[in-house]
């Protein structure tokens, strides 16, 4: 039996060190910042160039400079409105996530529950938000309530569907492994199902987060709740085009940042 221990005894020094991993991550951040700046520069020059080329009057579409001036002048109002919208969208998103994960867990664990509730959930999905918004406003008032409920209705479905796909993605052998070790259902859920489902859940969360901002703004248009959606609408009514463009640009940047943040979070949690 001599010499057996050396056979195929692999060398752990070949593994990457923490320092090497940190270097790789830093380089990735640098690349990301550069590409965002480059994209922004291209976007701004296209915007200014198109206005000049087609000779668009300033009362229809202001240039980057006028928009930025308005942004600087009204930044208190803009960020206040954005904060209001993000609060509503954020609360709605949290409720949507909790609700979606609870339903997905229940549907995965119980066939009876799935059969009883699934049609209701699908039915809720097919109702157009625009059609029920007046009803929601009637029930939940003209404040954050209607915004939150709208975000929940729009956002919870993609999270739930993706979470269920993720829960089902657990390999059969992993289930058997847990079973043989005598695991309880909540141990399987916590130690296998949720980790395996995380990439799927984040796909749903990313969809929900970007649509959350949009549906919150839509709800504000209709309810008059004082967020960035309402601000865009009002600026348009007063023909304050630079302010409107500044508000649109701000909400676009926020949507992009939300998308990037959830992608980032996903990578940190699933790697």
């Amino acid at each position, binding site marked *: *039996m001599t010499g057996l221990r050396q056979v*195929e005894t*692999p060398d*752990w020094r070949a593994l990457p060190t923490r320092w090497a991993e940190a270097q790789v991550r830093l380089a990735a951040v640098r690349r990301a910042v550069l590409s965002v700046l480059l994209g922004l520069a291209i976007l701004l020059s296209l915007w200014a160039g198109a206005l000049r080329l087609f000779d668009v009057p300033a009362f229809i579409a202001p240039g980057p400079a006028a928009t930025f001036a308005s942004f600087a002048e009204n930044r208190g109002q803009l960020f206040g409105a954005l904060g209001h919208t993000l609060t509503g969208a954020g609360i709605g998103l949290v409720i949507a996530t909790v609700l979606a994960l609870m339903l997905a867990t229940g549907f995965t664990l119980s066939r009876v529950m799935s059969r009883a509730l699934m049609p209701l959930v699908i039915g809720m999905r097919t109702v157009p938000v625009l059609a029920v918004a007046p009803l929601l406003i009637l029930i939940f008032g003209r404040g954050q309530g209607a915004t939150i409920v709208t975000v929940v209705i729009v956002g919870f479905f993609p999270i739930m569907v993706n979470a269920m796909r993720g829960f089902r993605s657990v390999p059969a052998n992993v289930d058997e492994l847990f079973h043989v*070790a005598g695991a309880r259902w909540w141990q399987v859920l916590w130690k*296998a199902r949720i980790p395996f489902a995380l990439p799927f859940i984040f796909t749903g969360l990313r969809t929900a987060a970007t649509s959350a901002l949009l549906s919150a703004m839509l709800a504000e248009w209709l309810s008059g709740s004082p967020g960035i959606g309402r601000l865009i609408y009002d600026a348009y009514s007063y023909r304050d085009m630079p302010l409107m463009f500044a508000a649109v640009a701000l909400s676009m940047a926020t949507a992009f940042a939300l998308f990037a943040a959830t992608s980032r979070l996903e990578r940190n949690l699933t790697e």
Partner: protein
Amino acid sequence: MGGIELRGATKRFALPDRELTALDSIDMTIPEGAFAALIGPSGCGKSTLLRMIADVLQPTEGQIAVAGQPPKAARLSHRIGFVFQAATLLPWRTVRENVRLPLEIAGVTPRRSPEALIDLVGLHGFEDARPAQLSGGMQQRVAIARALVLEPSVLLMDEPFGALDEITRQRMNVELLRIWKESGTTAVLVTHSISEAVFMADTVHVLSANPGRLAGSVEIDLPRPRSLGQMKLPAFNALENAVRDLLFLDDRPAEQAPRRPKVAAVGS
């Protein structure tokens, strides 16, 4: 009382159009501390048999005892370790955390630490590596360490080295015998290699298909510790032939096979 007993163990699956008898009254005794090999054509019910011993599936008829208990009681008292053909490691956990998983589930402190088991399977220094950083053979070592961490009475292995190349596989087999000896468990190895079965086992149980039946058992009286050199001995070949005879019990010579259309094999 760490052995395995099967008495008339039968498993039928209800298919949409008919009933499939995967295993038909299997009688088998595997003594405590023994190494048994199960061999048979694919689809003869080897995995089903292991799953019934591990209480993943329940027999339709018959009794099974693991370490003197029904499979469910044996499973819940952590007397069963299982190794699959795929290593089935959790990719987000390190080697150490993967080996520790059964301990977390069972909520017990082991006599032998996960680190000691990682040493036992020859992965010292890889405690903090992730599965993706390991080769297939190394991943399977982790799976073996994980199966042993609760100190089971029986270690069930379903073609554990089936995905590895021949050379790695022979090395892993030699190491597996050392690990088995050191851990003192009763081992059941499912394999589709005749020489592997003879090399590893005290007894080779041969299954036939449609329905899965025990065609016979061959006692392997080769001395231990086994070494690869034994594979060249006439006694080894004789045992291989005994297993082969049971495997191909009712096969006719190819030239005499009935209803086989004559085809020109030239150039194919």
